[in-house]
């Protein structure tokens, strides 16, 4: 019986043992998020969160985030091999609809990043007293968060709303939803375009104050006051405040950082191949192992699989792009323009790498079509022998400041100032200098200078343009290397075409009853 009692006791103690087991389990590799408590506890954690902001920002550039609007417009023709990649956006037909994945991705990328910016901004605002020693550093990072948020909303409003017009900017549902505090259950309606631009201004003002000590530097990995001014310039250009636009752009052009446009093949090589140039106001970090952004690979697609190569050319690498630059774009460049020589591969000759990459596309037959190689790939960012179009992300380049200044001066009636800035750009690029400034000249210069950067849609909309056809390269057309038809090289889009304002993605329309879709969809 004594034994029995022992067994009972043993069983009982086992019950007690298990009953007291801890059910508060927490995953390793994560930190608890306490909405009301301290977001960070020391400088190191603050640094990690700052990195999180930069990662969020960097993730939204290149690849589909710029290709979508580039191939939607008139700079590119789909190759016969394009396999319906970007099919809807390229054809600008009924497939460019709220279900489009590329447009959805743009929307979700920006709002996903805005969530991170919002969480950080609130975290600094409610920072408990005991962490106040981190205040100065936190304010600096908060300035970066404001900058990023302004940038994200500017990206959204340019794509999902009609261009700013003071007369209509306050119309209900004309803008995009403004989310300034993270709340998973919020179902925001669209703010007015005016409200969104006002918020951008307010965030830039905050960033300007918090980042005033961060002097600009060429290819800065961090947000500087020059970057804030550059974004100001974009903002003022959009809201038609040309005086301020010109002034902010000029401020960056005159920065002590001495940003300079590449004006020799060697300088182009440094900037556009090695990512070691002088044009970038901000150049985000990249390394072989840290692949934090999209890649503009569809323009080049190096075919590395030897099985696709015919026997006599086995072992070589070929460009096999999904999109060729249109003849319409190529025709805009003067013969001596270094941008033509360096951003395009003509007859297989690439001036950035001094190598020859034949274009190769269909059924083992080789054709030398001019291809767009502004983003051929930085050798330091690939571990294989094949360039893979990966480059450092440069969200703000000095070239755009020339263009904003020229356009702002022009629209303000100061043609001579406009011409002088424009000629400065053209001279550096080896182009023939314009003798006067017209809207068309400015429009074409934007096209030539910012090709591939994801600024095409906002340019077209701001100039009130559409486009008529995407005239293809003769060889591509005659050899059937491109997709042909009314929705391809013969595509025309009117300035009033509703597709120029992207549709709000289906997911959000279905899950948020407060949202109103853009007209046409």
């Amino acid at each position, binding site marked *: 019986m004594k034994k029995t009692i022992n067994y*009972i006791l043993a*069983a009982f103690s086992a019950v007690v043992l298990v009953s007291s087991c801890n059910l508060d389990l927490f995953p390793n590799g994560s*930190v608890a*998020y306490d909405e009301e408590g301290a977001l960070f506890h020391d400088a190191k954690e603050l640094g990690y969160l700052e990195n999180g902001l930069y990662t969020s920002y960097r993730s939204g550039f290149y690849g589909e985030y710029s290709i979508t609007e580039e191939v939607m417009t008139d700079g590119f023709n789909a190759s016969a091999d394009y396999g319906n990649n970007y099919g809807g956006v390229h054809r600008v037909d009924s497939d460019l609809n709220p279900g489009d994945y590329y447009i959805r991705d743009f929307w979700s990328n920006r709002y996903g990043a805005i969530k991170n910016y919002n969480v950080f901004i609130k975290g600094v605002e409610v920072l408990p007293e005991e962490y106040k020693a981190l205040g100065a550093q936190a304010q600096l990072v908060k300035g970066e968060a404001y900058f990023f948020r302004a940038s994200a909303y500017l990206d959204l409003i340019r794509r999902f709303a009609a261009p700013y017009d003071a007369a209509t900017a306050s119309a209900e549902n004309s803008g995009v939803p403004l989310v300034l505090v993270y709340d*998973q259950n919020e179902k925001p309606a669209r703010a007015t375009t005016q409200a969104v631009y006002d918020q951008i201004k307010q965030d830039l003002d905050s960033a300007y104050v918090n980042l005033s000590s961060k002097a600009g530097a060429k290819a800065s990995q961090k947000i500087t006051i020059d970057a804030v001014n550059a974004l100001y310039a974009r903002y003022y250009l959009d809201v038609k405040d040309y005086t301020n636009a010109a002034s902010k752009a000029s401020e960056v052009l005159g920065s002590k950082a001495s940003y300079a446009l590449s004006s020799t093949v060697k300088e182009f090589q440094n900037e556009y191949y090695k990512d070691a140039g002088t044009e970038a106001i901000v150049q985000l970090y990249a390394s072989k192992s840290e692949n934090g952004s999209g890649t503009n690979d569809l323009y080049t697609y190096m075919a*590395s699989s030897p099985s696709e190569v015919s026997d006599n050319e086995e072992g070589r690498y070929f460009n096999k792009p999904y999109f060729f630059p249109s003849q319409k774009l190529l025709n805009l460049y003067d013969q001596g323009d270094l941008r033509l020589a360096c951003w395009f591969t003509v007859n297989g000759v690439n001036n950035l790498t001094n190598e020859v990459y034949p274009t190769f596309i269909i059924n083992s037959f080789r054709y030398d079509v001019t291809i767009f190689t502004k983003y051929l790939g930085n050798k330091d960012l690939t571990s294989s022998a094949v360039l893979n179009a990966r480059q450092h992300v440069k969200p703000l380049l000095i070239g755009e400041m020339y263009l904003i200044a020229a356009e702002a001066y022009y629209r303000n009636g100061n043609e001579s100032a406009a011409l002088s800035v424009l000629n400065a750009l053209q001279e550096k690029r080896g182009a023939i200098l314009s003798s006067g400034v017209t809207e068309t000249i400015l429009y074409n210069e934007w096209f030539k200078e910012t090709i591939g950067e994801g600024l095409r849609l906002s340019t077209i909309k701001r100039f009130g343009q559409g486009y008529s056809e995407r005239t293809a390269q003769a060889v591509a057309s005659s050899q059937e290397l491109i997709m042909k038809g009314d929705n391809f090289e013969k595509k025309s889009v009117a300035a009033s075409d509703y597709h120029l304002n992207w549709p709000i993605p289906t997911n959000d329309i279905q899950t948020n009853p407060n949202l109103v879709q853009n007209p046409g969809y």
Partner: protein
Amino acid sequence: MLMKKIRVFFAAMAMLALSATALAQNITVKGSVVDETGVGIVGASVQVKGTTTGIAADVDGNFSISVPSNATLVISSIGYETKEVAVNGQSIINVTLRSDSEFLESAVVLGYGSAKKVSTLVGSVATVNSETVKNTPAATALDALQGQVAGMSVLTTGGVSGDNNVSMTLHGVGSLGASSTPLFVIDGIPSSSSAVMNMNPNDIESVSVLKDASATSIYGSRAANGVVYVSTKQGAYSENAHITLRSQWGVSTIADMTYYNNMMSGEELLDFWQRSGIASAEYLYKNYISKGYTNNTQWWKKFYNTNTLQSQNDVTIEGGGKTVAYLISVSQYHQDGTTVGNYYDRYTLRSNVQGHPTNWLKFGVNANMTIDESQRNTNFGNSSNAGGNNYLYGGLSVILNPLYPDKLKDDGRYEGSNYQDPKVRYDNTDDVYKTYNLNGSAFVTIEPFANFKLTSRVGTDAGFSINKYYRNPSYVASNGSGSRYRNWEGWYTNTITNTIEYSFSAGKNDFSFLAGQEGVDYKYDSFEAQSTGQTNDQQLRLQDGLQANYSMSESLSQYRFLSFFGHVDYSFDKKYMIDATVRNDASSRFGKNNRNAIFWSVGAMWKMAKEPWMKNATWINELDLKASYGTQGNAAIGNYAHLGLIGTTTDYATGQSWVLSQPSNNSLSWEKQGLFTVGVRARLFNALNLEVEYYKRNTSNMLMSVPYPYTAGFSSQTSNVGTLSNTGVDITLGWDILRTRDAFLSLNATFNYNKQTVTELFNGLDKWTVASTGITYVVGQPVSFYYPLWAGVDPEDGAPTWYLPYGYEEYMASVAAGNPDTDLIDITRTRMDPNATTKNFNEDLLMQNTGIARYNPINGGFGISGGWKGLSVRADFTYMLGKYLINNDGYFVANPNSFFGYNQSKDVTDFWTPTHTDAKYPNWADGYNMQFDSHLLQDASFLRLKSLVVSYTIPASWLNWQKVVKGLTVSFTGRNLLTFTKYEGIDPEVNSNLTLGLPGNSKQFLGGIQLQF
């Protein structure tokens, strides 16, 4: 039913062993042997005690035997208690044998307490015994359960060896977000389907499926999908040791070759291209004929293995002394897959020991150790990875161009085509998984006074797995850079259970009580390392790669459950029975405030046949009415879904990056289910078993990944939303058609009809389309396929056409008016109006309800078994009706414009021409591509001969000349020998919305021998 069959079988065996020689100076005794219900017991043995003299009763239980007048007769029959009767000169002796409940009725372990007889169970339990799963050619015994349990849908997805590919659902899919897999319990310890796969099927005594609330609610939080209880074999006390050796050898091959044989030959392909206008004669001449590419290479044969070796061998030693009983078994299983590179090897060791050293103490240890090794061809899909990595060289190799020559170059590729040879690939790569597993439990029961039992049980399902991968740098696909990968993962689920049980009777009242506690602790831990850039085939270690290309990671995941439960049984006069269960669970998967939940059930049974007024209906042997209602839960979601987390994302400038990675959901809690079951169980004419059950499962607080607008920051979050119901009927039938001294024949069948209805979704929505799946949830409908509806080829011009959905015309009018409104289109109804079709394909605008449910409403099986003397035959069929599957492979094999240059199915030759307007496919010359529409949604209903076993046990007398071998049986076992289906793809038995790149199910022919010592 199954027990009955065995009983008859053994009876037939027993007769063979008896010699019927009569002795002198005897009297003749006549009589009958009947069971408790007065029905004659066929083949009952009537033997003179202490002699070998005896006889077997006839079909009606009658016997006549000449015996010494003072003899004592021993009357026995398998399944009944043995009785001795002194003759004392009587010439008529009628004997009633009481059924031996321990044998006739398998005892079933329902929850945590002692085993109970099936006939006294209020809960609904279906039991499949060892006869069904033994010697199964499949790696997992679960495969053999197909069609055996009414209401249990069992599907084996694909034929990859070593793939834990059997999926089971009981009474439909009950959740749109959490898992629908039943809870697996092995010898009292909650476990998993992979633990069953780690077992030798011959170690299994029975598999019980717990179906209703009375049976499952004691498992509370994880019982919503039913419980599969696996009991392993135990040695018997006071029994001489006996040894069983089984050996089976044979071949494994692809179950159904129709799909492969339907591809075109090279000649047919060239002819088709030209005739259809897809390619010009000049083009074909220039690119193929002039280069000599006019072969007929069946490339897929290089990627598949047909007729591979399979072997399975095992030895079991069992026996017992007065206080200890044991069973030890070892087994080996080898199967070469049907795809190059795929194999599975498994070795198991089981040791089940139990003892009762004193009359108040019992203990036992069951342990199963497994080592297995497997490799799969990753270019083919498997049950967890649709498609595979590079499926042109795998599941889709049927479309490789037959015109290219079968000439292998030195670099492992083929001349002309540059196709990669799979054997060369496997000569240069290795991707082997080795797993070590321990599944076992130990218990101790003390019974300080009668019927009061304290039991403590601990168990574990623990193991670790090692994956090693390499690729030679010299292999052409490596581009000079080798790679190496190693992974280690370990896991355990430790369980402790403590119960107190007490039962007593007071007059006609029987009571039993059970109270207990259970704790479950799970942990998964893994790490991996990888490097690339190795340059020498002899130096493939991790550190031989380039340091810049090193990568490593680790992960860890845990959950815990803590539960308390109680159960009460009451029966009056063994006629009226009720039971009740209550259980409280707490889980680490939910936040503090929502961690606990109470589940309960009540059930009742009326054994009508025991009523006095039923006595006259002698043809009714048993008639039980049952009803129960109760609640169960489902917590099968991620381990940390309720927590708000700041996690790491891509580094920035080599520094760690933090972002809010998961939103918190403090209200996250259990998915709940209310389950009502009513049923009747009857045994009629002592030959016919019938069981009919109606059930209604209502799922509420459903755990779903709820979509949010992207503007929220996270586009989905796991939440408790929505409701779902499953209603259906189970029918089980067993019929002993023939029972004679030498022969038996019986039939059994199961049937289930299940109707699923989505009753409520999230955010007040009445429909939700799950992106890229073809699946839409609509309130009031089952989960259904939504696709553009294929309307065939227009006989006028050979263009493909699709049906317009309701409201399409109104939508187009709104577009014309400049105010497009997609809400005008009603996708929830099906419109197949031949006058409303379009030739312009647009997936978004043409999508509509196909009227086809994702989960098939009808499934079941039937089988026949018979025996004559030592020969026995058993065939089990399984069927699924109303099952549909998106044949994603079909998009590639019947789409000649999209995949020009590749082989195609012969079906595409049925295309439109001006003289052949009634065609299946459009006029290819016009460049039409086949689209993702309802033509790919194919009827995958099937009937399959799941298993066929023919065996012959030689008469014991033939073995009398020696003393070692006591029994010898030879057998033939076949699996998946016949398949009947209209499905056009590789294999209809895939449990998914779509199938892509999977190798089809395999079939086996095994010859076997069983020796008993």
